[in-house]
């Protein structure tokens, strides 16, 4: 509808408001949502970082040492700490949202959502223990 249209009872003129560019700052849940979306960049960074680590380890001990020195500089440390925080946010929000997306039936009964979330956390703890175990055995 044209904005300069003349109003009559048979030619209504609707009022439309534009969504602000900063709509996500207006409410905590919107802000958290944007942080969750942003976390995907840090997840991608960690994947790249791990690939660089694998490449360095496969090349030589010198390259691995260079990788460790590179990782030690304050910028990389800050980036990786920030990435860890975002990945924790990503995992926690993902696990908490999973029950809404998954409906699991066992023996004809629907499992409660909390059980699906708890099983996700249990899986995370189990995998973490296995990795920790491997590291401890190695050392």
């Amino acid at each position, binding site marked *: 509808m044209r904005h300069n249209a003349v109003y009559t009872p048979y030619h209504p003129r*609707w009022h439309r408001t534009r969504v602000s560019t900063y709509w996500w700052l207006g409410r905590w849940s919107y802000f958290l949502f944007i942080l969750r979306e942003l976390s995907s960049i840090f997840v991608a960074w960690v994947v790249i970082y791990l690939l660089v680590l694998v490449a360095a380890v496969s090349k030589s001990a010198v390259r691995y040492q260079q990788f460790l020195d590179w990782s030690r500089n304050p910028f990389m440390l800050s980036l990786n700490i920030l990435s860890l925080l975002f990945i924790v946010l990503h995992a926690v929000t993902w696990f908490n*949202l999973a029950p809404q997306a998954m*409906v699991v039936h066992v023996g004809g009964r629907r499992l409660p959502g909390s059980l699906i979330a708890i099983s996700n956390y249990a899986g995370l703890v189990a995998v973490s223990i296995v990795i920790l175990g491997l590291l401890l055995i190695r050392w």
Partner: protein
Amino acid sequence: MSDHITLHVARYRPEKASETTFDAFELPCPKEWVVLDGLNHIKDRMDGTLSYRWSCRMGICGSCGMLVNGEPKLACATFLSDYAPGPVRVEPLRNFPVIRDLVVEMGDFMSKLTRIKPWIVRQVEKPLSDGEYRQTPGELDEYKQFSMCINCMLCYSACPIYGLDPHFIGPAAIALAQRYNLDSRDEGAAERMQILSEHDGIWGCTFVGECTKVCPKHVDPAGAIQRYKLQSAVEWVKAFVLPRAAQ
């Protein structure tokens, strides 16, 4: 507690002004009054030109959705005393064009609703002589939550994606599609999937989750959309791995 409360009500009178203004009304505030009672009081005794939609007064018809202090609410289910001492800001639903005062244009939602075929689709209707389509309580439970939707559009008002991209088919329409897909008597899931798997369908949703939080009937549209995505992804994988079986 004060026995009066001030309502700042959004006014849009296209014959007089091209922008929204706010009028302040001081009202009595008995503890049993909801926002709709306040609006009816204004309409009856203070300013008869105030326009808003309402019908049932009991959270069934879905007509009186509006923003109360910025939150999408049913005016008939929002107690004024919860906002005491006020003031309370009452505005039309966000993300919709405003026709007048608190009345929004809902044609877009209605056309989206019909697109997803919110009725039981049968490939072949059985003759009446065969009797009704029977359903177990368990089968009813599968879709009952989604059938509680009253089309009040609060979820559209809470959804930033719909605000940014009005082509997005939206939470309630998808939840209602899921209501019929999960109904054991329905055979229209494939037809609905064609509409909902388009760009403006389920994949437009980025799971903000606000639709579920504001739903006055606890329908969980966000959950319906995510389940739909999972189902769609599983079907895509099936078609990829077993192309013949999918045909």
